[in-house]
């Protein structure tokens, strides 16, 4: 029985002693740290991809807690869902952002872009880009060695062996910006995912004049401005013989798509009928406009004639 007593006394004694000391010590040596940092970190995806512009998820957590505002800070991987949770933790208003996705702004596949030399350096777009402007005529196009694919942490990209161009897998891309930063030719761009994931963009960056550009790549944008004319919303601009669509202004009317004679306006998640429909619509509109113009012309002529007649009469 003494053993039992000893056991109980000693262990309980040790327990009480330990608790007392821990209490005293922690009182004396208290260090306060914002608990919300940990809480925020917990809801973040913790992939540490750096897509938010911070060096890692922990840094992001610290930054939001310090900033007490979500205006500047957004986690592209977690998206609005995560940012809502973060906002809850901090007790501030959530800021919604349109989801983005990476798009490939080059369509110069092997068949369209002939090789002009054989690159034989290290397998890396960045290295090739420091050496010369590329192994095809086009100095703006994709170099095709997949640096972008290598940096994607989300397995959202692969190189298409037939075209030699990278492909973004829509469901995996988190718009983390890694590939955009990596590409030495700035082929990749973050683009609003669009309503119901529909979007259109010009897949070319060639700034050469039309004839030169087409010599370099059969599907290059020649800056012909047909799309520019087709757009009723001023969403298309032409600079340096290159068309560009402003996603903010674009209403996805799709009327420009078929005006491009090399079909370099790329659509995503848009059924062909819709494009056809839009094209028909555009043609009808154009027809109508033409007719209207003609009528106006006729009317004007008629008016003139009338006027003439009138003056004659007068």
């Amino acid at each position, binding site marked *: 029985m003494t053993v039992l007593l000893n056991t109980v006394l*000693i262990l309980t004694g040790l327990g009480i002693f*330990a608790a007392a000391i821990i209490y005293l010590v*922690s009182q004396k*040596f208290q260090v306060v740290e914002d608990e919300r940092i940990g809480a925020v970190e917990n809801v973040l995806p913790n992939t540490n991809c750096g897509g938010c512009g911070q060096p890692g998820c922990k840094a992001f957590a610290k930054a939001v807690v310090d900033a007490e505002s979500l205006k500047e800070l957004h986690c592209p991987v977690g998206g609005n869902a995560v940012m809502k949770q973060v906002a809850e933790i901090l007790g501030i208003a959530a800021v919604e952002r349109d989801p983005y996705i990476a798009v490939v702004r080059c369509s110069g596949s092997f068949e369209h872009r002939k090789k002009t030399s054989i690159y034989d350096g290290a397998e890396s777009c960045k290295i090739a880009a420091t050496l010369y402007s590329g192994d095809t005529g086009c100095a703006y196009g994709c170099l095709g060695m997949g640096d972008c694919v290598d940096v994607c942490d989300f397995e959202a990209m692969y190189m298409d062996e037939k075209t030699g161009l990278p492909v973004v897998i829509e469901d995996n891309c988190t718009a983390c910006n890694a590939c955009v930063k990596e590409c030495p030719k700035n082929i990749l761009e973050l683009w609003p995912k669009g309503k119901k994931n529909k979007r259109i963009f010009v897949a070319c960056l060639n700034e050469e004049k039309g004839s030169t550009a087409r010599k370099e790549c059969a599907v290059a944008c020649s800056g012909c401005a047909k799309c520019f004319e087709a757009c009723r919303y001023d969403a298309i601009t032409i600079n340096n013989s290159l068309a560009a669509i402003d996603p903010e202004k674009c209403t996805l009317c799709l009327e420009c798509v078929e005006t491009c004679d090399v079909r370099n306006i790329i659509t995503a998640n848009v059924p062909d009928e819709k494009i056809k429909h839009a094209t028909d619509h555009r043609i009808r509109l154009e027809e109508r406009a033409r007719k209207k113009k003609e009528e106006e012309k006729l009317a004007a002529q008629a008016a003139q004639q009338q006027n003439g007649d009138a003056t004659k009469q007068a």
Partner: protein
Amino acid sequence: MTMDYLVIIVSAIFINNIVLAKFLGICPFLGVSKNTSTALGMGAAVIFVMTIATIITYLVQHYLLVPFHIGYMQTITYILVIAFLVQVVEIIMKKVSPDLYQALGVYLPLITTNCAILGVAILVVQQDLNLIKSVVFAIANALGFTLAIILFSSLREQLDGADLPEYMKGVPAALITASILSMAFMGFAGLV
């Protein structure tokens, strides 16, 4: 006399290396050995805690457990004392020396659950060492741990630059490395 200490030291560091031969403290050995600087931090923390813990548990053993005939309470009292000790050290260090805390403190909680500490404390009793020998034994074992983890982390750093087979990346390759390391250390057999 000095021979005894030499034997203890050589044996603990090389022959019966706590990690490579006795399988204690494997979790931090694998977990905190991705680069040399953290390995160093862990090593230093282990040396520190192992020494203090051994002294304290030695006192507990000889002044509480033995006189009161409750040797069977060894495990529970030891671990309570160690957990308590680590926590107190951590709290104090955080406040008093944030630099040191940055360097060592982050490893301290890991150490509470490190078999090596408790293992050494129990081994000391099993081998019936006196206080000074216990301390030497503890330090030598901690040094053995540190040696192993530093060697190991430098090897892993090098492997980082290598293109390992996909499924060997990380822990499997580390374990194979550990196995070869432990084979190599078997060459010291019979040294003492």
